[in-house]
């Protein structure tokens, strides 16, 4: 773990020391709502290929806004986002989004929901169902292909959302508080599965969460945002060994210290 920088570190300096090539770059992004509500102020970040980066902060810090700007779902008021070296103008096939409320079509089966990203890209039915079937299995929903979303638990629904995002084979997975709408036990299982998933899928993950434990548990790097106006407060690189036993991490003193340290940094923004 490296937390050498003071709490008001300049994020640009961080970016210079990066080893891996950045796949997503955020340059001078501002977002102002309704003319005067500053949601994001001068965000400069880069995300390296193959890493899992969390955007962490209390509510109102603009972390979801930032993720949606990177997704191309929202337009920044100023600044730009580069993905694989190209400036984005909207959503693109190299990015896939996992929604907080799952965003599943209630009238479609698990399989069709999982294949929907491919369906929208014009992939023939046979091919897309085959791909979707593979990912439905990979997220642990084998046997549920023909069920409808309302027949599944919240956790299972989000697995469908995850399968849909994986099926389009995007380079970057954007996850907007994906586990916040499921119960605590399911959430833990999900976090463990996410770590395992990363070993199989060579993808870059951007992960929005308001849970410090979750961020520390799953991330390679945490970007701490502070609220009103949302700006980068600190960038923390984590070095927690993720071995065979997922439970061991939660007892790792390194893990516990990091959680504690971030909590102390964040506490001042709460009222």
């Amino acid at each position, binding site marked *: 773990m490296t937390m050498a920088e003071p709490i008001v570190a300049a994020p640009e300096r961080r970016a210079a020391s990066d080893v891996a090539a950045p796949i997503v770059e955020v340059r001078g992004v501002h977002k102002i709502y309704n003319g005067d509500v500053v949601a994001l102020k001068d965000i400069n970040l880069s995300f390296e290929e193959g890493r899992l980066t969390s955007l962490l902060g209390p509510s109102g810090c603009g972390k979801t806004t930032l993720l949606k700007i990177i997704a*191309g779902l929202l337009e920044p008021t100023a600044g730009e986002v580069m993905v694989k070296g190209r400036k984005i103008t909207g*959503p693109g096939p190299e990015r896939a989004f996992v929604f907080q409320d799952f*965003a599943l*079509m209630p009238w479609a089966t698990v399989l069709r929901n999982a294949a929907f990203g491919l369906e929208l*890209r014009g992939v023939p039915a046979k091919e897309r169902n085959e791909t979707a079937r593979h990912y439905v299995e990979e997220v642990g929903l084998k046997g549920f292909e023909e069920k409808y979303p309302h027949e599944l638990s919240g956790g299972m629904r989000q697995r469908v959302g995850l399968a849909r995002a994986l099926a389009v084979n995007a380079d970057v997975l954007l996850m907007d508080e994906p586990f916040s709408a499921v119960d605590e036990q399911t959430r833990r299982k999900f976090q463990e599965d996410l770590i395992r998933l990363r070993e199989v899928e060579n993808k870059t993950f951007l992960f929005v969460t308001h849970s410090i434990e979750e961020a520390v548990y799953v991330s390679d790097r945490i970007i701490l945002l502070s609220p009103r106006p949302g700006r980068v407060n600190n960038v923390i690189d984590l070095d927690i060994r993720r071995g065979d036993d997922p439970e061991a991490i939660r007892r790792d003193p390194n893990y516990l210290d990091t959680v504690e340290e971030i909590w102390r940094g964040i506490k001042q923004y709460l009222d």
Partner: protein
Amino acid sequence: MTIYGYRIPMMASLIVWCILWEIVGRLDLLLLFPPFSDVLVALGDVVNSRSFASAVSITLYSYAWGLGLAIVFGVALGFLMGTVPVADRLLNMWVNVFLSAPLSALVPVIMILFGMGAPTVIVTVFMFAVWIIALDTRAGVLHVPASLLEMARSFGASRWTTTWKIVLWAAMPEILAGIRLGVIRGVKGVVIGQLLVSIIGVGALFTTYSNNFLMEHFWALTLILFAFALTVGQLIALLEARIDYYAGARS
């Protein structure tokens, strides 16, 4: 409904009313109310008469056309109002005015425009059914969850694709509710239209029966129309229940 632990089917209340009708009819208080049993006998007469067969065919023909046009136009109008804010501001007031206006008063005008035949009845059915379908469709389109729209956009869906693959299906429960109400209002439209035109279809029959004081026949025909409206409404409700089942997990 249960009485003393016995489950009584909902239709049981109908039997109570029928008995009450029979009693009132037998008291001979009013010329207008023949006993229910006489009406049932007349029912056979009405159904077997040749004029009934032709009345049914012309009525169904006008009803089907008027309702079909109302569904196509109403759903399209509702989509327009739900997706284009300018169109909504322009049209919303008028649609609401037409929804609550006494449309029967307009039928004579329609008659002048479309003549004394089936076209007038078709237009009347259309006018009775279309507005509620448009307003319900609009409500459905406006209530499509924002995250579903974002989801489609994030996977690169065009506006048209989103409309066909997401909005139409997500709004389906409201659209069907609108159609069910439209179906029932359409029956009103077909009867009122034909009564005012009064030379075709069941309207002509109604006129004949009441002018000749054939009250048994008059009520028998009324029963048939009620049964028809209820049956079609129930069929749509069944379809609705199915769709609601799929849409039950709307978040």
